[in-house]
């Protein structure tokens, strides 16, 4: 007992100060691919390298009034597993940033597109593109101001949930990678309980379902029942590429795809898997959004 106490004093407080202080990812962190659409002239090279179809290069959208070949390049962070294969295939136009895309309430905020047409040298030339930065929106503003986020979230949690939010985690068919990171939220470093957030054993006690996917055919009825068993008002957060879109597993005989194919979702947290801080941030975003929910 004395040894344990001595060790406890020696260890001190391990818990980090997130969100006031956020961990800077190390060099070489496998984060989101960022495309410089203007420099992308190779057409489908990067899309061909993508193992999940997060990058797609669709031909055939003819520009009105021209006979030129047209195409659209789409990057969907909701399908991306952040493997970096596109960057290795097209290093001149794609870089990998040392961060994951922030969680969003709308799936479309995870998508970047650019339209191209073929010029007379048979090279793809850009017509128009989304900006490569974050889409404007509440989540992006929050992402830049952690202090404000922390304060506003505390306020929201206090107001709505009497200083506590209860989460029921549901694995709807994940590979267990997301669970490894969600479990880490309870370790002494992240200590999610300091936010007044607790993981509970039953959906009947829960305010929020934190769901990892893809939703398998065999889990779809159980997920639906769990949702129905959760008292209103409730929030649903979809975790990871699989939870958002089915990820690398997509839609097959065995997988229904993303969580929102079975139950409505309020917040999407991209990543494969999202790390503990990305998860925390997503959960906090979801709370902030609460008052505006339909």
């Amino acid at each position, binding site marked *: 007992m004395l040894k344990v106490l001595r060790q406890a004093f020696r260890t001190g407080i391990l818990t980090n100060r997130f969100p006031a202080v956020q961990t800077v990812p*190390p060099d070489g*962190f496998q984060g989101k691919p960022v495309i410089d659409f203007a420099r992308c002239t190779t057409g489908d090279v990067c899309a061909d390298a993508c193992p999940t179809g997060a990058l797609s290069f669709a031909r055939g959208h003819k520009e009105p009034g021209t006979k030129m070949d047209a195409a659209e390049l789409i990057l969907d962070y909701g399908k991306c597993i952040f493997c970096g294969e596109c960057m290795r295939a097209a290093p001149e136009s794609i870089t990998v940033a040392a961060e994951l895309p922030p969680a969003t309430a709308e799936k479309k905020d995870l998508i970047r597109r650019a339209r191209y047409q073929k010029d007379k040298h048979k090279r793809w030339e850009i017509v128009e593109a989304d900006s490569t930065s974050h889409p404007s929106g509440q989540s992006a503003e929050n992402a830049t101001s952690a202090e404000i986020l922390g304060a506003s979230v505390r306020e929201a949690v206090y107001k709505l949930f009497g200083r506590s939010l209860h989460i029921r985690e549901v694995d709807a068919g*994940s590979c267990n*990678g997301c669970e490894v990171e969600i479990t880490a939220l309870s370790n002494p470093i992240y200590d999610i309980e300091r936010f007044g957030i607790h993981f509970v*054993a039953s959906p009947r006690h829960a305010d929020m379902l934190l769901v990892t996917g893809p939703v398998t055919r*065999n889990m779809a009825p159980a997920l639906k029942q769990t949702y129905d068993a959760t008292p209103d008002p409730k929030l649903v957060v979809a975790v990871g590429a699989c939870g958002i879109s089915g*990820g690398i597993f*997509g839609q*097959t005989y065995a997988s229904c795809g993303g969580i929102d194919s079975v139950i409505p979702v309020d917040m999407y947290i991209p990543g494969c898997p999202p790390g503990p801080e990305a998860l925390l941030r997503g959960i906090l975003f979801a709370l902030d959004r609460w008052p505006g929910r339909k």
Partner: protein
Amino acid sequence: MTARDKFSVIIRRAWADRLTLRSGPAPNELYASLHPDFLGSLPDICEMIVRSFHARFVTLIPVDERADRNSFRVYYVFSIAREDLFLILEAPVNPRHMELPSITAHIEAASYFEREMNDWFGITAFPNIHRLASHPDWPDEVHPMLKDFDLRTAVPRVRGTFDFRPVEGEGVFEIPVGPVHAGIIEPGHFRFSVAGEPIINLDMQLHYTHKGTEKLAEGRRPAHVVFLAERISGDSAFAHAVAYCACIERIACMEIPQRAIVIRTILLEMERLSNHIGDVGAILLDVGYAVGAATAFHLKEQLLRLNEILTGHRLLHGMARLGGVTRPIEDTVAKRDTIRSTLSDVRRTFDALIEWVLSTSSVLDRLETTGILTQKDALQLGAVGVAARASGVDRDLRRDHPHLAYPFLEHRAVVQKGGDVFARFKVRVDEVAMSIEIILQLLGQHSGEALAAPPAVLPASTCALGYVEGWRGEIVHWVMTDAAGNIGRWKITDPSFHNWRALSLAVRGNIVPDFPVINKSFNLSYSGNDR
């Protein structure tokens, strides 16, 4: 004379009329094809292989080869550990009959494999006919692994109920648990039959997380399937990816650079370290020793962060690639120093933690004699990995079929005799110490510059095994290429698939409140089992 030659001679002498031998591209695989007329003697031949060669059943691989050979093939893989040889018995199945004799009467470990084959291929290993993988709402006549079943088929749901084994008698109750569990774990349904507190029987329905992973790979480029392999079981991402890569490398006879071998070995041991320490913490949490659990989870977090510093990913995704690894992890003095200092911190704190545990009788009381898996049961069910070694079954692929850098490390397996939760706890504790030693030893070695072999074009219709000893136990993959050199068939064998039945035996006679800690001491993967 190689082991392969030696066994070729023995088999020819004994069964020349029934078995035709051929070798695969990998030097330690010997394929023996059974003549269709002798299909009836399949169980006897399997039994003879096990008995006379001291072989062990590893996995069973059904393949739809109707396009090439107008029949199905079922491959029974046996390991002959002393000789580092895999003997692979190949049985043809007539597509009109879709039946072959079950080998379960002789080899109990094959039972689940046969039932899964029945569900996914419609090949019945008679009389082992009960459903395993297909849920009750799945129609009888639909078999998703057949080549003419389209991956994206929407299969209608039918009415049906789980076929649990009823236990009847005065005062016997059933406790249904799951698929959504109380903790943050994967889904599965357990049905306990209890009389008072003790568990009389545990039945389970798994395959809730079945994602069609094997089917998804078919027809895809070998390089893309690495990412799928990383997502078979999230906590064993690197081990599964390396096992898959090994299949392709053995098919293409690639020479893996020494440096890649060293990095792969280090990362496999890193994966073992973080998971074993996490499991030690989880076991302590389940017996209410919060201070021990918090300490272990802190150590695990340190190790995951070390992973992130070295590879850019906490779970080591993106590190394995065909022919080697993606990036160096030991290229700078700073990185090597970070590894050394983190590991020495971890070792010091972990040793102290174990000392506390061993001097806390309230913890030991919960761990000792709880959830005993006897050596006899472990052998019969073909248990592997930590669960087997804790029941006195000396089984470790790192030594039995040396791969990666293990042949140079004179690896010895950690074996405990107790078979209880405490034995599984101790196996993990000893393996933690061993993993740290292995990493430090490999870190000091200079091993060249190249990180990966140049890419190779795969030959058509060729097959090979790939295997590693993951932290949970042996992971065995098998790949057959199609006519275009893409993936034709991919079989994944996760250690959990062998061990789930061992868990259901280990809990019998224990009280229900001890189930969580027994379950945790096995810590089996649902996703790896269900795929």
